[in-house]
């Protein structure tokens, strides 16, 4: 049997979910036996592959770039997993929503900068007016809340996904866990 293709994606988040994923420690070896990590901040692939079995997405959708990415990921993934609170609720990145991107950029790049204050506009993607969870853009198959979800949560959830077993997420984790 060929191995499952697994991808992890990092949108607007702190990478804490990825850290927690790595906290599975030796259980990662167990995972490696059944799945290949085909795309991830942890590996070298630059392009999202044509076909992925399970995509774990960390982070909220905060920029036009994130929006484009999440739509592509959805199109090329069989199972899309929203990993952690940012992807599910917007979490900390969404705390700017009541303030607006202009005010935030102003504070960060103009008001508090002494030398050459300017708002970056080259290479960096344009911010969306509000940060939103990924299921506001695409269909999400599995939600794994937590900030971050624990390594045990990852282990149990991924095992269930790989084996196709039942998965009671609320027994494992919650918002802010």
């Amino acid at each position, binding site marked *: 049997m060929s191995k499952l293709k697994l991808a992890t994606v990092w949108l607007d988040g702190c990478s804490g979910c990825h850290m927690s994923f790595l906290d599975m420690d030796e259980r990662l070896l167990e995972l490696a036996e059944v799945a290949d990590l085909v795309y991830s901040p942890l590996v070298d692939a630059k392009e999202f592959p044509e076909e992925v079995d399970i995509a774990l997405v960390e982070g909220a959708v905060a920029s036009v770039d994130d929006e484009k990415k999440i739509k592509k990921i959805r199109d090329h993934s069989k199972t899309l997993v929203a990993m952690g*609170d940012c992807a599910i609720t917007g979490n*900390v990145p*969404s705390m700017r929503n*009541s303030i607006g991107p202009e005010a935030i950029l102003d504070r960060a790049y103009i008001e508090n900068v002494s030398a050459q204050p300017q708002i970056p506009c080259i290479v960096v993607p344009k911010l969306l007016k509000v940060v*939103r969870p990924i299921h*506001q853009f695409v269909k999400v198959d599995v939600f794994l809340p937590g900030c971050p979800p624990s390594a045990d949560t990852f282990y149990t959830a991924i095992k269930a996904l790989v084996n196709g077993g039942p998965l009671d997420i*609320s027994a494992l984790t919650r918002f*802010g866990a």
Partner: protein
Amino acid sequence: MSEVGTEVKILVIDEQEVSAHAGQTILEVARENDIHIPTLCYLEGLSNVGACRLCLVEIKGSSKLTPACVTTVQEGMEVSTNSERLTRHRRTILELLFAERNHICSVCVANGHCELQSLGQELGLTHVRLPYRNPDLPVDASHERFTADHNRCILCTRCVRVCAEIEGAHVWDVMGRGVNCTIITDLHEEWGKSTCTRCGKCVQVCPTGALFDKSKIGSEHPKYPDFLPFLNMMREAQ
């Protein structure tokens, strides 16, 4: 609290036959019998307002849903506290609450001991389908001991009731209408400049991180609202 009589009523809750005193509410009787009904605005020791609508139950013979916290038991009543319909509504109500203000569990002082958060988990809420409203709300840190973060308030009015009914100060009240409702101190004074007696009861009964003690952070901030029934008992005894 309801006026409890001596007459005994027999009723059925979730197919379990239970006995109750006349005048007891469905919620009281259910709790006595370890039948769990989710609540948010209800708190033993305070008056009941029936506002959060989480304790709605089905009563055989009625198509309407009934709030368990304010409905007194009747002989032969058949109550169902857990059905697909109830769970669906309860989840939607929790979603409405999560989307209404800015509930960021991960950075909240009540993370880990918040009643809203636990109910979300208990009812299997893994995400909120509704658009988040992201309102721009103030944080009142003018009080020397406590802070009110309106981003986390669910308008359960426990603080309003405990201040008026138990402390007797009636510093807290509700201002505005609809989604613009806000809890205020006095006539919308800053908390620190209000007639607050600094008893801290409102902080203890607040189910979320909306009212918290400045001297404590994060997980060091469990709340103990269970003092209320004892306080009432002692007062009645005197």
